[in-house]
């Protein structure tokens, strides 16, 4: 697949719009369908496409394992951290209303933050899973496929 020029060009053209769409879904979740989870999946899909076209090793260089693992942890920490922020500011755990001066602003801020956390972890986990499966298959294909 690496040698297929047309595919590479098409993929190169496709990936940016997919990424844009992912961002849109991420931050549009408040108004229409969408949110961190969906955005994460789409973002990961774009990346997987990249890996399929340009090869696993290239993809790995672009996004090192260490970064992926860190992102996986950080997303969850962001979510949980927002909860703690509510707690420190005088509310119960996960109370967003106290995050800003009025309830609506606080809720909005809180939701945006946690959706970002969700998105981060989901992207990272999806990429991890893909690498794990694809990594194996690459090995197999070299030796016995």
């Amino acid at each position: 697949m690496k040698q297929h020029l047309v595919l590479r060009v098409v993929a190169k053209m496709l990936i940016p719009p997919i990424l844009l769409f992912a961002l849109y879904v991420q931050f549009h979740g408040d108004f229409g369908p969408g949110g961190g989870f969906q955005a994460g999946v789409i973002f990961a899909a774009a990346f997987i496409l990249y890996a399929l076209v340009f090869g696993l090793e290239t993809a790995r260089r672009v996004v090192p394992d260490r970064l992926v693992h860190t992102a996986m942890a950080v997303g969850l920490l962001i979510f949980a951290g927002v909860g703690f922020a509510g707690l420190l500011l005088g509310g119960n755990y996960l109370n967003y209303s106290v995050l800003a001066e009025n309830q609506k602003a606080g809720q909005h801020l809180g939701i945006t933050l946690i959706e970002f956390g969700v998105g981060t972890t989901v992207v990272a986990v999806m990429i991890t899973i893909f690498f794990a499966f694809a990594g194996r298959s690459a090995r197999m294909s070299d030796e016995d496929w």
Partner: protein
Amino acid sequence: MILQHLPALQIVVPLVAAPICLLLRRGDLAWGLTLIVSWAALAIAVMLLHAVITGGVISYELGDWAPPWGIEYRIDAANAFVLLIVSGISAVVLPYARASVASEIEESKHSLFYTAYLLCLTGLLGVAITGDAFNLFVFLEITSLATYVLVAMGAGRDRRALTAAFTYLVMGTIGATFFVIGVGLLYMVTGTLNMADLALRIADLGDNRTVLVAFAFLVVGLGLKLALFPLHLWLPNAYAYAPSVVSVFIAATSTKVAVYALLRFLFTIFGLEFSVEALTLTYVFLPLAIAGMFAASTVAIFQVDIKRMLAYSSVAQLGYMVLGVSFGNVTGLTATILHLFNHALIKGGLFMALGCVVYRCGSASIDEMRGLGRQMPLTMAAFVIGGLSLIGIPLTVGFISKWYLILGALEAGWWPVAVLIVATSLLAVLYIGRVVEVAYLQPAPEGRVVTEAPRSMLIPMWVLIVANIYFGIDASLTTSVAGTAARALIGGTP
């Protein structure tokens, strides 16, 4: 302020520790963090239990959304006690874990292993603490997923760990899905997911076939998770082939938490008045419990792998717990809750002893136990005491459980059942006796020279063994807490 937020911290502290653990990357640091978090969780659980016993039920509204719109944590004596069991066992297991994990799991995976462990702990605590039926499902699945992985980590020693984990995954997922169906049906006819609210609304519904089916699905779903005979098929291999530390931890906690969830649904949500329930208790739980006690104990006698033997024994012991439930009286329920705690001590101690054997000998088969009484005296002494406790010899915790269980049977007027209870403990004499005989009365295999396990493993093991005796000699604390918990459940105060 901290005191007021204890319920949230109980869950969130280990939850947050998990990703941090991943970030630490180094195995020893991850272990240290897990250890600290476990002890913190234990401290929180102790404070919660104290607060509940002195001040009554605690309700914590997450996000400050009042139930039933938001998710509520609702802690009474019953789940505070379960929290204590889970975090207590975790606190004891971790010092033990270091050497054992180092010998069974490859170095590069240690931080991931402890991350999974923390997630498992989080899930167990979450199931116990929550007052929301769907939230319970979410945490149940956190635990389950983490447990599948942890069990599979035994593959380094025996590849059967993989199939064991897979079977567990399939059966566990069926169980979880049944549970979700049950919760869905309840939601359908009541419109709520909050347990206390559900209890009120179900009582108002009266005779309703949908509620009936929901009840059945919840019981089967949780039955799968708690390995209620004959839904226990996943358990023996999972316990037998998991890494030692995992065997200790899940044997002592995970089915206990599922039993707790069942109690919560039976008594708090459906309530003893729920007409079908009385029949279910008598005609379903009672025979299944007794069949499980006998069948599993008998199978245990013929096991070659001692870890597997203890696993079957666990199925039998779960029979005791379900039996206590089936009496439908406070004493029986007290026995069940008491046994949750006591059995955690017993099986924790026994599996730790086997962990020590595996650590030195590489396997826990009956052949490997030959002559160990002399070569690993402290480990085998612990095994013997744990075994006596399992049998229910006086001055051990096992006896206290049995005492209340028999009392419950007599109170319910079923004295033949009382005789059956003791009859099964005699089967325990057979399978424990077999190991003791081999360990003490047979010479060690030619050329095998092993020494005692490292101190970091011996001390936690003996802590549990001493607890076996201590709470067997002075059971006033545990019995009073269990009694309070049982009354809280049966009394209908959710």
